């Protein structure tokens, strides 16, 4: 009940200040469009015989998750913390768990909206092929979104200022995303970099979403890692909020 109240309020506030939201939704979509246009609709050997749009779609779905989780959530939450909004909420009886869950639910909802827009536009403009396994893609996307939203929440309550959160979020996103397949195709990157990417949360979420998208297979290893990341982040963020 409390969580529903908070989510509704946050949505209303977002609608009132749409620029941030539009940018974070549009950024991955625009990049996908750019890449799809530059690789063309024909199959490409560097992309494993796929077209640009087909190859990059699951990668940029993951980018939607990461932009929100690493850049949107920490900045928002650290800003709340810095200005005393979190204390205000907690003193009014909002529990730490309620705060964490409402931010995660909000982020996952927004990421889903971004994903639907992206797939719809890709289909309309570049004749994007739909995922081989809808359910696999959806579940992997949701697990990834929860994991990144929770991690973003943790960053937000650990960092003392919105500015610091924004800086770290930017560094994490760009540092991880372009070595994990968001930029040049992995086939063109050195092996060592590809191996490294496989050990990062960005690599996990891209693998988890790409596997059911391109084939009917799930990636249980990546999903397990993301689920662990989600649980640990939720626990640590809740604990941190309760203690301070």
């Amino acid at each position: 009940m409390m969580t529903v109240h908070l989510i509704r309020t946050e949505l209303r506030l977002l609608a009132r200040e749409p620029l941030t939201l539009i940018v974070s939704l549009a950024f991955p979509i625009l990049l996908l469009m750019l890449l799809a246009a530059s690789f063309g609709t024909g199959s490409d050997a560097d992309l494993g015989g796929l077209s640009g749009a087909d190859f990059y779609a699951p990668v940029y779905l993951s980018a939607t998750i990461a932009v929100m989780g690493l850049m949107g959530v920490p900045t928002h939450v650290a800003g709340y913390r810095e200005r005393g909004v979190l204390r205000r909420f907690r003193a009014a009886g909002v529990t730490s768990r309620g705060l964490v869950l409402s931010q995660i639910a909000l982020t996952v909802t927004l990421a889903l909206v971004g994903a639907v827009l992206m797939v719809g536009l890709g289909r309309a403009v570049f004749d994007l092929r739909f995922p081989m396994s809808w359910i696999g893609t959806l579940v992997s996307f949701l697990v990834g979104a929860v994991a990144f939203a929770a991690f973003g929440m943790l960053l937000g309550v650990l960092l003392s200022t919105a500015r610091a959160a924004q800086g770290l979020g930017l560094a994490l996103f760009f540092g991880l995303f372009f070595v994990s397949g968001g930029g040049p195709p992995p086939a063109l990157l050195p092996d060592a970099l590809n191996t490294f990417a496989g050990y990062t949360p960005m690599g996990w979420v891209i693998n988890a979403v790409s596997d059911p998208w391109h084939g009917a297979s799930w990636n249980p290893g990546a999903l397990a890692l993301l689920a662990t990341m989600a649980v640990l982040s939720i626990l640590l963020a809740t604990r941190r909020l309760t203690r301070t």
Partner: protein
Amino acid sequence: MTSVITVDGLAKSYGSVEAVTDVSFSVECGEIFGILGPNGAGKTTTVECLQGLRHRDGGEVRVLDLDPDRQPDELRRRIGSQLQSSALPDRLRVGEAVRLFAGLQSVPVDVEQTLASWGLREVRRRPFAALSGGQRQRLFLALALLGEPEVVFLDELTTGLDPQARRTAWDLVRSVRDRGATVVLVTHLMEEAEALCNRVAVVDNGSVVALDRPRRLTAELGGAVEVTFSSNGTAPALVDDLFGGLPGVASWQLSDGLVTICAESSGVVDIAAALAAHDLHPDDFATKRPSLEDVFLALTGRTLRD
């Protein structure tokens, strides 16, 4: 009288900094209890520990028979808080804030009635960022009092308000008490503590240095009452005659045409009577009672504003 809050040997450190070393007091039901001290004395830390917003390192705390560390959620349903340097999201409107916080209460809240009684109806559609200092404080007070809390914590309620708005806020605090709530008021303003509080704990360097009714504190620890009036040409010898022998007069002096007498508070009447007996009626006869500021100075050797 029953105690709604008992604090015994409260201690709290941040790293190596000891914010609160030894704070003990109890708050009776229905009183306005002041926690007075300079910035950094440990006042805010103390009330944050009482509200379960911070975990204490040592000591015993009971608020409404609950332990704030172990039963924070239960406790917060029964208390109201106005926090120092807290805020709401910039674009949240007044009406929405009241509705959001009303939805968190365990009892139903009449949102319209709340907006009306705090004079917030005209600004209900105004976003938090566009509110004046006074409007923000009224909103925070309104939020703190939603759901009829049994204990209300007010931390630096009037900081940033002009004198007019400050007096209005004081009236609001009294009305909170009159509605039956117990109020814990944190302040670094001695006028505020004197005007509002039934009892005051004077806090310095993380511990309580004095605790009593403001009047008793000033009478016992504040030192002499100062009486001043113009001499209007009265000869120093006569002044000496008049006041030298009066009981309760500690000292007197005449300079620049102004007589200044230090006396016990009971001696003021005798001074006035002596003047009247000699047909002297200075129109600027004034007494200055010691304030909590003087009490603090006497106790710590420093002023509250240091």
